C-alpha cells in the first residue's frame, strides 16, 4: 500500500488543527501559527501527490512548495510586524478587542 492515504490523513488532520486554532484562539499570534499549520498541510499534499502520483521529472510539486514556503516566511514576517504595531497601538493581542470596524 502506498502511504498516500496516510499522508493525506496527516495533512487533513494538520489542516483541521490549524483551522481550529484560527477559529477559536483569541491571541493573534496563535492565529498566525494556525495559518502556518494550514499552509504546511497544503505543502504536505503537494509533496505527497508529487511523490506518489504520476512521475514528474520537472519537480513541479516541490517547486510549488518551495515558493509556498518562501511566501509563508514573508507572510509571517509581515504578519508579525502588523501584530507588533497593533500591540503598540492597543496594548493587546486579543482579536476580540480589535473590533473597531464593527457595525
Amino acid at each position: 500500500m502506498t502511504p498516500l492515504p496516510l499522508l493525506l490523513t496527516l495533512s487533513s488532520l494538520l489542516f483541521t488543527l490549524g483551522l481550529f486554532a484560527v477559529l477559536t484562539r483569541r491571541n493573534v499570534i496563535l492565529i498566525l501559527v494556525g495559518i502556518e499549520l494550514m499552509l504546511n498541510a497544503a505543502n504536505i499534499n503537494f509533496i505527497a501527490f508529487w511523490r506518489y502520483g504520476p512521475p514528474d521529472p520537472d519537480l513541479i510539486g516541490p517547486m510549488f512548495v518551495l515558493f509556498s514556503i518562501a511566501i509563508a516566511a514573508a507572510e509571517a514576517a509581515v504578519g508579525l510586524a502588523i501584530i507588533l504595531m497593533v500591540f503598540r497601538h492597543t496594548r493587546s493581542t486579543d482579536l476580540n478587542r480589535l473590533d473597531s470596524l464593527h457595525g
Partner: protein
Amino acid sequence: MAEALIPHLPCLLWWVPFLPLLAGGIIAFLPNRLGRLASRLAIGALFVACVIALAAFVCTLAPAEEGVPFRFVAPPLTWFTFGDVALKVGLVLDPLSAAMAAMVTFVALWIFIYSIGYMEKEARFGRFFGFLSLFCGAMLLVVLANSLLLLFMAWELVGLASYMLIGFYFEKPPAAAAAQKAFITTRVGDMAFFIGMIWLYRQSGTLLFYDHGNGLLESGVLTSLAGITTIGGLTVSAATALLLLVGAMGKSGQVPLHTWLPDAMEGPTPVSALIHAATMVAAGVFLVARTYPIFGIGGLQSVPLTAAAWIGGITALYAALVAMAQTDIKRILAYSTVSQLGFMMVALGTGGVAVAMFHLIAHAFFKALLFLSAGSVIHGCHEEQDIRRMGGLRAAMPKTFITYAIGMMALAGFPFVFSGFWSKEAILHGAMNWPGGYGPFLLTVAAALLTAFYMTRQALLVFYGVARQPGVHHPHESSSIMLVPLYVLAAGAVLLAIVGTPAWPWFEEWIKGEAATCHPGALVKPDALKLIGLSLVIVTLGVGASWQVYRNVSGDSAAPDPMAGKLAGIWKFLEQAMGFDALYEKTIIGPLAFCAGAVDALERQIFVPLMAVGESCIKRFGRWTGVSDEKGLNDGFDSLCCGLQNRADSASRSQAGKPQGYLRAIGLGMSVLLILYFWLSA
C-alpha cells in the same frame, strides 16, 4: 571489549545526540510544576549518552594500522531524494569526534548537576533543563556528524539553544538584547559557512565527510578541489576553507565577530559554563579541526591556515588586553575564553589538529570549573558580580577558593602539574616552528603573559585582602550539590596534564593514529627546555607583576583600579573593550537606523501631506454636494432614508468586527456549498 562493541556502533552512536534531544523534546511538554522530574530526565538522558560516548571512546583507542587513526563511518542514511540527487546524512566516529563527544557529555553532565543547586529557586526550572538538553544534544550532533549539511543543521540548533538560554531571563532587557546580539552576530558567520557549503557541494557533488573514498575529506575530492583556481588566484579549496573559517570565527568569537560573547554573560552562570566550555564556542574550533584536510592543502603555509593563525593571534592578545581592565567576574572569564579560543586558532593554523584539540579539551575542563566556581562566588555573595565589591572571600568560602585557584592556575599556565601548562606549551612550540614567520608566536607569548596577569588580578581581588566596603554582606559557602561538580572538574583539569606532556604525548599520537610511546628524553631536548623556560618566565612575570600591583588594594570599593592611574586613557579604552561596540553602532547599526529613519520621514513628510491635500479636496466636494442636497431635497426622501437606515442598522449588527465570526460563517457557507456540489454531482 572494543571488538565486542564495534558491531553495535551504528545503532549506539545515534543515541548519543538523540537521547539529550529526546529529553529536551519531552521536557517541552511537561508542565512547569514537574521541574524536578524534568531535571532528572535531562540528567538521566545525558548520563546514558555519556556512558555510550565513553564506550565509543574506548573503541577508538586501538588504531586500525600504524599512522591511520581509527575511523568508523556509520552507513549513511538517505535523507531525501530530489530529482536524481540524493542527500545523505550519517555519523562518523574517529578520535576527534570521540574525544569531543566524551568531553561534551562528561563536562555537561556535571554542569547539569550543578544547575540543580544553582537554579533551585528558579520558577522556570524545568524549562531550563529542557533548553540545556537541547543545547547538548545539538552539540553532540555537530561533533558526530559525517555530513557538512548535518553539521550545519546541528550548528544552527546550537545557535537557537544558545539564544534561548542567553535570553533565559527574557524579562530583563539586557538579557533579551544579548540573546539577539549572539544570534545575529553568529548569523554573519553562518552566512559565510552556508555559502562555503553550497560551493563545496557544487564543486564536489557530496557533503559527506567520509564515504569510502568519495567523501569531501578524502584524497580524490581534495585533489580535484585544489586543482580549480577561482577569484584572486585562490584555489576553490582555499576559498571555501576561508568561508568556513568565517563561520568558525562567528561561533568561536574571533575578532571582529567576538562582541556577542561577553554580552552572553547575561544568561545564568551554568549556561555561561556550558557555552564557554563544552558547547557553542568549541563548535567553531571543531569545525576547522573537522575540515582540516581542506584547510591543510598546500601545507602549513596555505592561505586559510595563515589566516587562522593570524586571526587567532590577534584575538588572543586583544581579548587578554581587554580582560585586564574588566571588573565583572564573569566578563573577565568571558574575555579569557575569547583569548583562549584565539590560542586554539593559532594552534590550528600552526601546529595542527591534535595541539588545538588538546587545548580545547583542557580548556573545557578548567573553564567550566572557573565559571562554576564564579557561579558559586556569585551565589554566595547574593548575586553580586563586581569584583571591586568583593575581597577576602577566602575565609568565607574556602572550598570554592581551592577549586577556583586550581582553575585559575590551569588557565594561567602554572608549570608542570596543570593541563593548561602543557597545552599552552604545545601551542607555543607549534607557533615557534611555524614556517610562516614569528608574528603569531609573539602575539601568543604576549597573550600568555597577560593571561597570568589578569587571572592573578581577579583571584587577588576576589579572594585576598580585606572585604571592601561597600560590598557584600555575609558571604556564604555553597551547598554540596554545587561543590561536588567543582571537585570533579578540578581533578580533570589537573589529571589531563598526564596525557599531554612531551614525555608521553598520548593524546597527540592517539589523534594522529600512532601507538603511544614514552620518550622521557623529549623533556630535556634543547627545543623543549627553551620553551619550558620561556613558559616559566611568562608565568612568573605575569603573576609577579600582578602581585606587585594588586597585593594591597584599598578597602574602598569605589576607589579606581591601581592600574588606571598608570595607564590613564588606555585603561579607559580597554575598559570599553577597545570600542568595538561603539564602532559597530556607528558603522552598521547607525546607517541602518538612518535608512529606517529616512523611510519613516518619507512617509510622514511627503505621503501624509499628499494624503491631506487629497482629503481636503474630497471634503470640500462633499460639503458642496451636502449643501446642494440640503437645498434640493424634500422630506419624502428623508423618510425613505430613515427607513433604509433602520434596515441597515439591523443588518450591520451581524457585522460585529470580529474576524473569527466572519471566518466561521465563511466556513459554514463553504461546507454547505461542498455538500451541495457532491450531492449534485453524485
